[in-house]
C-alpha cells in the first residue's frame, strides 16, 4: 500500500514540477535590460504614444510644469496641508530660498511650451501615455487626475490614462524596470542639510532619483559638489540658490509641495514642540507631560504615555534602523552624543558628550564623554563604548542601511566594501576621556554633527553587546558581523542596554512596544513610568482610542484632517497644526524610459 502511495506522490511531484515550469517563465527573466514599457503606447510620437526620450525635450517638461494645478492639488489632494516649493530645498533647511522662482498654474504658458515641443510635432500629433500610482495613495491619484485633466483641456489629443499598481511593483518600476514615463514619490531627509536634498534630485550619478531619470550632467554634479564643499556661508548660499534656480530652469520633475504635518494629542498632554528632523512622530517624549485637565476625553492611564501608529517596529538595534518607527523606540532607549537644540536643525545641545570642538587644521572633531552615566545593564559609560558603537555601526553596514552616512564624512567612501579594518579603526579613536573623529574635509562639520544626532549614532553598551553575542570589537571577527542577512541576526535586535530615560519592558512585534522608566537616568526622572507604542492599522480604532482617552496620541493621516476638525471643536484635544515637515513630494519625468540603469 505505502509503496503505491509514495509512487503516486512522486508522480504528483513530477506533474507539479512540470506545472511550475509552465508557470515559471517571467521569473528567470532579468530586469537589468527590461522589455520596453507598455505605458508609452506605440513608443513613437504618432499620437498613439510617446517616444522613450519624450521628456528629454525641455519644453515638454516646462509645459507640464505649467499645466499642473498646484492649488487644487494642495487643497484637495493634501487637504490643504501643503505648501508649493520651487525646488527640492524646503523650508527648515539651511539655504532655503523663500523667494526662489516657482512654476504657477498657467495654461497659456503651458500651451506655448507644448507647441514648441518636438518642433511642434507633439502639438499636432498629440500624445498618449499612462500614469501610474501606488494603489491606496489618494494624493498621488489626485495629482495624476489633475495633470491628465488639464493636459486634455489644453489639447484633446493629449490622452493620459491613470492606473494603480501595488507598492512593491511601483518601487520596482522606479528603480528597476523604470518603464514609467512619470512617477511620483516623496523624499525624507537623513540629516537636514540641503545636500541631502539636492543630490537625490539633481546628481546624475548617485542621485536616488535623478540618476535613474537620466537627469543632470557631469558639469552639474561638479556644481553640486562645489556647493557642498564651500565653507564660506555666503558663497555657499549663493551656490545653493543657483542650484535651486537650475532645477527651475531645467526641471527634473514637477516639484509638488512640502507637506504640512499635524499632531493630535489629548488635552491632557502638553509640552510638545516640533523639530522637523525629530524622527519620532511623538516629538521628544522626554519633554512631554501628562496631567488631568478635565474635558470630554477621560483621563486614563496616569503615568503612562500611549501612542498608536501604523508602521511596525522592525528592530531595536541602532546600527540597523533606517525607519522612523524603529528610530522612535531607539530614541527612547538610547542616546546620542549630542542632539538638536529644540526646534533648530543646525544648533545642538550636548547629551552623552558634555562638550565638543572641531579643529579645522587637522580636521579632528573631539567629543568629551559625560561622566557618571550608567547603562541599563549597570555598566558605566566610557569613551570605549562610544568608539565601539561607531565602529560597530561602520562594521555592520547592513544592505540598504544608514551606515553610508558615517563613511562619507570620515573616509569619503560610501560603504564598508571599499575599506579595510584599519580605516574603520583609525576613523574613531579614544583619547583619554574623549573620543576623536577625523573628518574627510572641513566642510563636513555641520552635516556630520547632524548625522551624529540620528538614532543610528546611538551609543550602545559594549560589554553588554559582546555578552549578547555581538561583535567583539576586534579585526579578527569584523567580517563575520559585516552585512548581516536578517534583522534578527544582530545581537541588539530585541535586547537593549542604553543610557536613555526608558528601558525595554516588552516587545510584541507587529503589536506593541512597551518601555519602562529608567530610575537611575543621569538626566533626572522621565515624565512617564511607561511609554507604550501600539501598531493599529485601523483609522477608526485609533480615532476612538484617542477620543476615549485610551491613547494619548494617534497617527492621523492628512485624509482625515477634515473629520478631526469637526471633532476638535467638540472635545478637548491638544492639536498642533501647520508643522512644515522636512520633506518634499515631486512628480518626476523619466527622461529615458527604461534607459540603462546607472549602476554599470
Amino acid at each position: 500500500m505505502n509503496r503505491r502511495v509514495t509512487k503516486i506522490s512522486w508522480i504528483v511531484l513530477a506533474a507539479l514540477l512540470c506545472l511550475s515550469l509552465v508557470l515559471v517563465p517571467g521569473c528567470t527573466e532579468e530586469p537589468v535590460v527590461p522589455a520596453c514599457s507598455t505605458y508609452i503606447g506605440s513608443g513613437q510620437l504618432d499620437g498613439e504614444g510617446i517616444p522613450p526620450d519624450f521628456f528629454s525635450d525641455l519644453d515638454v517638461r516646462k509645459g507640464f510644469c505649467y499645466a499642473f494645478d498646484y492649488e487644487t492639488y494642495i487643497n484637495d489632494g493634501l487637504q490643504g496641508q501643503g505648501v508649493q516649493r520651487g525646488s527640492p530645498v524646503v523650508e527648515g533647511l539651511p539655504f532655503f530660498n523663500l523667494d526662489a522662482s516657482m512654476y504657477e498654474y498657467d495654461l497659456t504658458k503651458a500651451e506655448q511650451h507644448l507647441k514648441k515641443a518636438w518642433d511642434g510635432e507633439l502639438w499636432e500629433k498629440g500624445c498618449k501615455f499612462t500614469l501610474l500610482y501606488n494603489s491606496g495613495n489618494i494624493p498621488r491619484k489626485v495629482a495624476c487626475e489633475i495633470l491628465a485633466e488639464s493636459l486634455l483641456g489644453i489639447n484633446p489629443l493629449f490622452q493620459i490614462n491613470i492606473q494603480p499598481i501595488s507598492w512593491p511593483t511601483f518601487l520596482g518600476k522606479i528603480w528597476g524596470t523604470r518603464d514609467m514615463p512619470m512617477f511620483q514619490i516623496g523624499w525624507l531627509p537623513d540629516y537636514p542639510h540641503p545636500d541631502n536634498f539636492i543630490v537625490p534630485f539633481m546628481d546624475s550619478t548617485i542621485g536616488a532619483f535623478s540618476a535613474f531619470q537620466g537627469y543632470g550632467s557631469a558639469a552639474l554634479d561638479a556644481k553640486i559638489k562645489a556647493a557642498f564643499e564651500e565653507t564660506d556661508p555666503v558663497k555657499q548660499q549663493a551656490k545653493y540658490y543657483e542650484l535651486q534656480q537650475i532645477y527651475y530652469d531645467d526641471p527634473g520633475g514637477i516639484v509638488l509641495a512640502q507637506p504640512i504635518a499635524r499632531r493630535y494629542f489629548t488635552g491632557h498632554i502638553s509640552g510638545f514642540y516640533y523639530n522637523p528632523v525629530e524622527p519620532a512622530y511623538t516629538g521628544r517624549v522626554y519633554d512631554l507631560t501628562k496631567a488631568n485637565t478635565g474635558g470630554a476625553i477621560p483621563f486614563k492611564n496616569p503615568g503612562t504615555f500611549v501612542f498608536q501608529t501604523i508602521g511596525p517596529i522592525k528592530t531595536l538595534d541602532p546600527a540597523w534602523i533606517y525607519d522612523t518607527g524603529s528610530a522612535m523606540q531607539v530614541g527612547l532607549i538610547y542616546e546620542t552624543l549630542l542632539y538638536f537644540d529644540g526646534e533648530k536643525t543646525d544648533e545642538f545641545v550636548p547629551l552623552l558628550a558634555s562638550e565638543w570642538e572641531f579643529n579645522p587644521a587637522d580636521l579632528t572633531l573631539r567629543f568629551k564623554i559625560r561622566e557618571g552615566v550608567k547603562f541599563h545593564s549597570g555598566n558605566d559609560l566610557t569613551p570605549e563604548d562610544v568608539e565601539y558603537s561607531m565602529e560597530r555601526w561602520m562594521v555592520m553596514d547592513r544592505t540598504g542601511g544608514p551606515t553610508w552616512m558615517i563613511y562619507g564624512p570620515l573616509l569619503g567612501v560610501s560603504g564598508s566594501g571599499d575599506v579595510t579594518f584599519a580605516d574603520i579603526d583609525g576613523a574613531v579613536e579614544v583619547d583619554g576621556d574623549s573620543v576623536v573623529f577625523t573628518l574627510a574635509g572641513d566642510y563636513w562639520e555641520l552635516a556630520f554633527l547632524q548625522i551624529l544626532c540620528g538614532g543610528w549614532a546611538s551609543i550602545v553598551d559594549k560589554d553588554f553587546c559582546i555578552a549578547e553575542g555581538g561583535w567583539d570589537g576586534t579585526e579578527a571577527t569584523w567580517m563575520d558581523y559585516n552585512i548581516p542577512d536578517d534583522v534578527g541576526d544582530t545581537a541588539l535586535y530585541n535586547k537593549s542596554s542604553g543610557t536613555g530615560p526608558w528601558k525595554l519592558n516588552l516587545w510584541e512585534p507587529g503589536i506593541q512596544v512597551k518601555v519602562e522608566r529608567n530610575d537611575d537616568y543621569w538626566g533626572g526622572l522621565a515624565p512617564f513610568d511607561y511609554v507604550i507604542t501600539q501598531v493599529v492599522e485601523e483609522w477608526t480604532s485609533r480615532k476612538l482610542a484617542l477620543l476615549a482617552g485610551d491613547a494619548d496620541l494617534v497617527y492621523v493621516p492628512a485624509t482625515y484632517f477634515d473629520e478631526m476638525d469637526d471633532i476638535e471643536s467638540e472635545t478637548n484635544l491638544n492639536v498642533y497644526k501647520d508643522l512644515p515637515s522636512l520633506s518634499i513630494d515631486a512628480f518626476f519625468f523619466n527622461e529615458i524610459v527604461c534607459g540603462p540603469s546607472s549602476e554599470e
Partner: protein
Amino acid sequence: MSDWKLMARQLVRNPLSLMGIIIIVVFVIIAIFAPLIAPIPEGHRDPYMIPRDGYSAMPRPPSEEHIFGTTQGQYDIFYGVIWGTRSAFRVGLVVIGIVVAIGIVLGSLAGYFGGVIDEVIMRITDIFLAFPALILAMAIVAVLGPSLRSVMIALTVVSWPSYARLIRGDILQVREEDYIEASRGLGASSGRVIIRHALPNAIYPTLVMASLDIGAIVLSAAALSFLGLGAPEGYADWGQLTSFARNWVVGPPGDSLRYWYAVTIPGLFILFFVLGWNLLGDAFRDILDPRLARR
C-alpha cells in the same frame, strides 16, 4: 424536457425561489439599463470609474444630486452600486463559466478513467483545497496587480478543484450504471461515452448547482476588493465601495452613525445579489435532489 417545465412550475410556486428569481431579474435589469439609471457624465472617460465630486475624504450624506450620498473621496455611491452590478455579473459569469468548463474536463477525465490520472488530478485538487482559497487568491491578485481581471483569474485558479471533484463524483456514480456498461460493451469510444452518456446523466444537476454559485463567487470577489486586492480605487465595484466605508464606520462623538450610508448601502447590494442566487440555488437543490423528492 417536461421535467424542466415541472421544475419551472415548482420554482414559481415556492415563495422563496420566486423571491430569488425576482431579485435576480431586478439586478439583471439594473445591469442592462445602468447607463439610463445612472447616466455617465459627459467628458467621463471610463464608465466604470465612478465620477467624483471633489476630492475631500469626508463622505457626504444623501442629497438630490447624490441620492445615496458620496463615499470617501466624493465617489457617488449611487453610480457606484448601479455600475457595480455590471462588474458583479461580469465576474460571476466569467469565473463560473471557466471554472465549470475546467471542472467538467478534469472531473470527467479523473472520474471516468480513474487510476493514475485520477490520483494525480485528485492530489492536485488536494493541494489547492489544503490551502485557504482566500489567501491563495490574495497572493495571486497581489502578483498580477490589483484589478478586476486578476481577481477573476485568482478566483478561477482557486475554485476549479472543488468543481472538478464534484463532477468526478457524479461521473463515478453513473460510471457503473448499466447503460454506460452497455454502451461500453457496444464499443463506443471513451470520449463518446463520456459526452453522450455519462455527462448528461451525471452532471446536469451539478451544472445547475454550479451556475447558481455565481453568488458565492461574487462574494469572494467582493471580499478580495474589500481587502484592498480587488478593483482599483474609484472602480464601480461593491466590495471596493465597502472598503472605502471601512474608515467611516464610526462618526464623531454624539453622532456615531453619521456615515451609515457609506457603510450600509454597498453591503446591502452585495447581500441581496448573493441572496437572490442562493434562494434560487436552495430551491433547485430541493428539486434536483432525488433524496428529497416529494411523494
